[in-house]
């Protein structure tokens, strides 16, 4: 018999937390929730734990049964993050957008990306900002908080001085260090892993 955890009336992410705790103790649990968002979150979590997930929508609630180890292997991190790179990891930010194409979307993506960088375990050693990318490093930048957090955690932030000058932003820089093309070229060429967004 699976362990039953009644999560009806719980606000998210409580059902997921309850599920996680229950799965740590036993291999098979049934979680009862009362809304589709909780159902999806619990089911997704169950699948991420390599569980077989069955959902039974009853009148009094949604019953999600998760059986551990019944399907595939648990999702693991990309192996690349475990293999030490032969040199520093460098992330290049050549623009104040992520990707090319739609400008408004690009601005959102870069904010989302830089926030994610503060949370993932594989931090870059150095980040290089050039062209419109330097606009992300000034006082009014919406990602300043993230860049400052990265710098505090040991990420070296190099900013193209020529670019700051071009945009007249030299006085407004609020994180990192102004750099020149020699240092930027050396850093790019000695990188063990080079990532451009």
């Amino acid at each position: 018999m699976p362990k039953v955890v009644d999560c009806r009336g719980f606000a998210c992410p409580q059902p997921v937390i309850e599920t996680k705790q229950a799965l740590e103790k036993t291999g098979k649990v049934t979680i009862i929730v009362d809304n589709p968002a909780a159902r999806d979150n619990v089911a997704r979590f169950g699948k991420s734990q390599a569980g077989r997930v069955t959902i039974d929508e009853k009148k009094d609630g949604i019953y999600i049964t998760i059986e551990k180890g019944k399907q595939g292997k648990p999702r693991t991190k990309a192996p690349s993050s475990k293999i030490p790179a032969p040199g520093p990891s460098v992330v290049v930010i050549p623009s104040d957008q992520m990707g090319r194409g739609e400008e408004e979307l690009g601005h959102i993506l870069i904010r989302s990306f830089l926030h994610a960088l503060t949370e993932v375990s594989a931090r870059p050693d150095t980040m290089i900002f050039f062209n419109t990318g330097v606009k992300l490093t000034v006082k009014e930048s919406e990602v300043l908080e993230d860049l400052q957090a990265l710098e505090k955690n040991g990420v070296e932030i190099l900013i193209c001085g020529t670019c700051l000058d071009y945009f007249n932003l030299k006085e407004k820089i609020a994180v990192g260090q102004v750099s020149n093309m020699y240092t930027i070229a050396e850093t790019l060429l000695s990188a063990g892993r080079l990532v451009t967004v």
Partner: protein
Amino acid sequence: MQDEQINSYGVVLFQSISSALRAEKLLKKQEIAYKLIPVPRHLSSDCGICIRFHTQNESQIREVLTGKVEIQSFCLL
């Protein structure tokens, strides 16, 4: 415990990026502190970004957004 409360966050999840953007504009106009972040892994929404807020601003944010933007849900982190 008190410190935890001061630093506790919640997120507003949206059905679409355009809703998230509309919400962002409204919050900016009202000068309410928020941060646009990717939807945390343990949650889900139809769009991949959400708005994080300090829990002390939750009621104010609800007030500003209700009826103006399609919201999927509010979640505490």
